[in-house]
């Protein structure tokens, strides 16, 4: 059938040859739309992800922690901006993407619908949530769309700092007072399973996966990436002498991987559907900032217009 569309053969050949697709190259409409969906969702996740941690900037427990956290949240804004720009190369504007986020048409990582309740959550988010994100993003450094792959290379460098700052917070809490240890364990208990859910449904249940693998938008399957994350995290948790909340977690000599318990997929779909603590708060926060800033953006545009006019007149 592909004979009818020779471009499609060329396109697939390029992908099979591990060449990158660039903005001006021919691409199937479905490839473009699939990328817009995935990349804008990624950008939204960076921006919405600023909220649960941003929640702790004002009350961080030391000056050092305050500065590190603020830098980290600033990085997330930078990642968002970078990813929105990369997505714009596919023929959609940032304003359109914003509107889709606010209307609920476009998604963000569902994990940010969980609340950050204590300072230890800042550590757990950095360690586990960013840790899971990195496993996924390292794989995406080889994604077939050039601007996305290059964005990932840059973003991964910063994300690994983020994960280290999160783990460093956990180390200090784990070595600290009984109350600090308890705070750390409680955060792990609440963030562990949602972190595993971040990789998405099992391969057998994943709707978007097969085509994405063929086009090399995705390079490794959800279950492969999830296993990689579990394997690296178990050892890190042992160093903390804290527990991951899974009685089925154990080393499997034969598979050379850790076995782990079944994820509560009902919870996963419930939170996606809107039954998380913060689904409404996150969007409300975003809409509020956007609305309150409307006059600023309008003024900047108006001033730029006046300036251009004056330049023309001169």
């Amino acid at each position, binding site marked *: 059938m592909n004979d009818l569309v020779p471009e499609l053969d060329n396109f697939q050949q390029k992908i099979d040859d591990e060449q990158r697709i660039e903005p001006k190259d021919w691409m199937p409409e479905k490839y473009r739309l699939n990328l817009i969906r995935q990349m804008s969702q990624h950008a939204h996740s960076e*921006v919405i992800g*600023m*909220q649960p941690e*941003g929640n702790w*900037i*004002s*009350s*961080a*427990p*030391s*000056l*050092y*922690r*305050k*500065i590190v956290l*603020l*830098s980290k*949240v*600033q990085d997330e*804004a*930078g990642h*968002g*901006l970078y990813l*929105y720009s990369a997505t714009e190369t596919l023929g959609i504007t940032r304003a359109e993407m914003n509107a889709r986020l606010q209307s609920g048409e476009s998604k963000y990582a569902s994990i940010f619908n969980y609340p950050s309740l204590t*300072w230890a959550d800042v550590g757990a988010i950095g360690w586990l949530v960013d840790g899971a994100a990195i496993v996924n993003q390292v794989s995406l450094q080889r994604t077939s769309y050039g601007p996305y792959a290059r964005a990932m290379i840059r973003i991964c460098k910063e994300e690994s700092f983020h994960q280290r700052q999160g783990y460093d*917070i956990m180390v*200090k*809490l784990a070595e*600290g*007072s009984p*109350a*600090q240890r308890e705070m750390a364990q409680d955060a792990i208990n609440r963030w562990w399973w949602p972190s595993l859910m971040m990789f998405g449904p099992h391969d057998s249940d994943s709707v978007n996966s097969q085509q994405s693998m063929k086009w090399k938008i995705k390079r490794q399957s959800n279950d492969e990436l999830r296993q990689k994350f579990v394997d690296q995290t178990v050892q890190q948790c042992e160093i903390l002498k804290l527990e991951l909340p899974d009685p089925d977690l154990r080393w499997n000599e034969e598979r050379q991987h850790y076995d782990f318990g079944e994820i509560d997929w009902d919870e996963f779909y419930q939170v996606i559907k809107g039954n998380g603590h913060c689904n409404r708060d996150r969007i409300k*926060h975003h809409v*509020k*900032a*956007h609305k*309150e*800033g*409307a*006059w*600023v*953006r*309008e*003024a*900047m545009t*108006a*001033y*730029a217009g*006046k300036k251009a006019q004056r330049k023309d007149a001169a």
Partner: protein
Amino acid sequence: MTEPDNLSTYVLRLADDAMVLGQRISEWTSNSPNLEEDIANSNVALDYLGRARMLYAYAATMLNTTEDDLAFMRDARQYTNLLMHELPKGDYAFSTVRQFFIDSFDVLYFEQLIHSGDAQLAAIAAKTFKECQYHVRRSRDLMVRLGDGTDESNSRMQTALDELWGYRHELFMDDELETELQQQGVAITRADLQPKWDAAIQDCLTEATLSIPEADWTVSGGRAGVHSEHLGHMLDDMQCLHRSHPGVTW
């Protein structure tokens, strides 16, 4: 903690100014009008918080305590920042005008403080002066764009000017302690900076199509720990976690 002398009191004043304003600016993170402004605000907040840390750390060596004790264990009555720094962030116009007033002052102040007879203060001032130069470039640029933008933005900026105008006097007040330190070649005479500051503000307002407020008034008291009602609440939020776990490390 050792009893503070003139120098450590002076360093603490400058530290409190930076701390309180840095905390306020950081409230824009994830709340700014767009991502570009969000990133810029976080950057400026980081500069202020970094400055606060350097100054607290210096004061801590003189007072035999730690930077965190100075930031987190003192109450509002013990904070000695100038009032303008602590006011709630308001709308973007309010934060922009406040920032421009303070940046315009700081760039003059720290340029002089580089010549302080106190080597540590001079070194901190040298780093701070560099940051102030790009802060004022940004806040002046925003003043013009928002002043000469739309009718709404112009009106919001004028309102912010009116609301902040009376707080400027405190920037230029020299008390006995600072006068003594000036005579020793350590501190800067604030009053001397006013003509240049006035000129810089006038020059910017003209370009921004804004006017000097007609009504003038003066509120002061920050150096004596007599603050607005807002500072206590800000410190409650900032210090609560630190104080809830005495003696631990984070």
